[in-house]
């Protein structure tokens, strides 16, 4: 899509030139504001403790060192457990992958059923599912903790997978529903006349058309679940904690000398997967963001 002002003739003259420079200056200053925390994390993670003490906040690392990264990865102490971030990183993968896959499959089926095979009350069902995307988690923390306990899933990865699938359904259903609504019903009609059934139409007609929204949904769910802290902190015990909870424990442990380079390296480790996905597929992430709502 083109810029709003592209219909207008470009402004001429010195005044316009100065305004143009000012415009770029403001935009670049804002870029610096947004980038500062990330740059700080990256540069600090490559510095030695000595350099952090003596050097300046914004200086680049003099002696580029990966020590903090390797220490954060497999030796840093999270509580009494000194195996570094690695096992928790693995926990997050074990939680995220099934949770994303399951919630996406259900979302796609729901979206398909709610748009192409509309039944009486479909809109109410959709509205009730959708409300879940705005639900403050605090309302369900306690009953969920009790339920997971009763199911024997307390403190386990399985419990967290269940939680993320259930509360992700609102988003995945919303994404697919709004996407499928724009696919012509005639396609489905024609296929039913040819004798195709519910699931056949889904796999043969809808799924092949669904790649863009599939990418949006998977990226959205991946980012949300990977970044989750509240559920992880409430429902996962000790060794089953996701990487965000481990990071928080590492950074907020007060014993011993503070190793800022290790903190920053650990933060980068926890943030890198979603950051890489964002850089590679930001367009799809933005579409998920603007598709309706955000989880806080």
């Amino acid at each position: 899509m083109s810029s709003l002002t592209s219909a207008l003739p470009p402004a001429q003259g010195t005044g316009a030139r100065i305004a143009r420079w000012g415009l770029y200056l403001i935009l670049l200053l804002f870029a610096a504001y947004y980038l500062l925390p990330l740059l700080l994390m990256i540069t600090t993670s490559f510095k030695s403790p000595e350099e952090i003490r003596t050097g300046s906040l914004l200086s680049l690392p003099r002696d580029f060192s990966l020590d903090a990264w390797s220490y954060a990865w497999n030796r840093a102490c999270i509580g009494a457990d000194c195996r570094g971030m690695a096992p928790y990183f693995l926990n997050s993968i074990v939680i995220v992958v099934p949770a994303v896959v399951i919630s996406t499959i259900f979302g796609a089926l729901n979206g398909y059923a709610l748009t192409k095979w509309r039944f009486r009350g479909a809109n109410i069902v959709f509205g009730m599912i959708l409300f879940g995307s705005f639900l403050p988690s605090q309302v369900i923390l306690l009953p969920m903790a009790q339920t997971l306990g009763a199911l024997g899933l307390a403190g386990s990865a399985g419990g967290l997978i269940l939680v993320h699938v259930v509360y992700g359904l609102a988003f995945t259903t919303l994404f697919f529903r709004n996407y499928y609504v724009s696919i012509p019903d005639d396609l489905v009609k024609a296929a039913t006349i040819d004798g195709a059934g519910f699931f056949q139409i889904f796999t043969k007609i809808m799924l092949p058309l669904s790649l863009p929204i599939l990418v949006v949904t998977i990226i959205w769910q991946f980012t949300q679940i990977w970044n989750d802290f509240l559920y992880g902190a409430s429902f996962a015990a000790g060794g089953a904690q996701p990487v965000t909870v481990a990071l928080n424990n590492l950074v907020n442990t007060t014993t011993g000398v503070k190793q800022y380079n290790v903190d920053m390296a650990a933060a980068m480790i926890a943030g890198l997967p979603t950051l890489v996905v964002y850089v590679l597929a930001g367009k799809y992430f933005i579409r998920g963001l603007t598709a309706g709502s955000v989880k806080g």
Partner: protein
Amino acid sequence: MTMQTPSLRPAAGEDAGAVPGSATPQKAGGLRAVAQRHLSKLVVAPSFAAILLFVYGFIAWTVYISFTNSKMLPSYDLVGAEAFSKLWRIERWYVAIENLLIFGGLFIGISLVIGILLAVLLDQRIRGEGALRTIYLYPMALSFIVTGTAWKWILNPGIGIQQFVRDLGFPAFTFDWIVQQDTAVYTLVIAAVWQSSGFVMALFLAALRGVDQEIIKAAYLDGASLPRIYWGIVLPSIRPVFMSAFVILAHLAVKSYDLVVALTGGGPGYASDLPATFMYEMTFRRNQIAIGSASALMMLATVVAIIVPYLYSELKGGKRV
């Protein structure tokens, strides 16, 4: 670059086939069509059942518990609205509510101003727009637990900005909001605006790109200046986006939790508590389950008051078009 419109309203097309019952063939197939239609309900049923239980059932459970005298473990003896009246006598709850008002007001206001400003500036045929947009929005892709690590450092007077500026030769420079009772909540605003204003930018930029160019052209030929065109014509014409942005930011503010945990931990003392951290503290640390549940319901009521009218008008509007 295509961006989805910032709306819950489905994109064009829904109403093309808005025959009641949509694609389901009414006559062809008979029995089979009936089976197919039930299949549709069967497919949605597990998700709907899960939502009924885990969202609405759990809300009901929390409501019930808030009317009991549960302390460390849930008790099922109803004692009336005791927990609510206790809640509203706790000073810490008032601190959390007051903080939410300060934090929410500033966070929403400043995010809107910065987001709109950036969207309008980026709309001026900027070279490198894609890269700038990516930079403005990346904080949304990272957990605040991650970026909070950096923010905590920046705001720490001993090693962050304050020390940096002092080292530059201004020994009297002071920026210690994070350790002061009265100002800690403002550091939450700084970090939250940093995280969400790029998102507001994306919402408004998408809307700006959808405004009819002919209107702009006509106004320009009439001699209106660019700022006046934006202020007088363009921004009023995308009014619905203000509503969406406000609703999303407001519900983010009510739910803010990670931010506080990563940045201040609610401190110093409980000076920067928000309702979400208050609820966690009461429920999981102080064994006051009933009061924790009551506070969670206050948060829910706030979100419902913001969301339900919005969802209603959006969904209704979608059908009306």
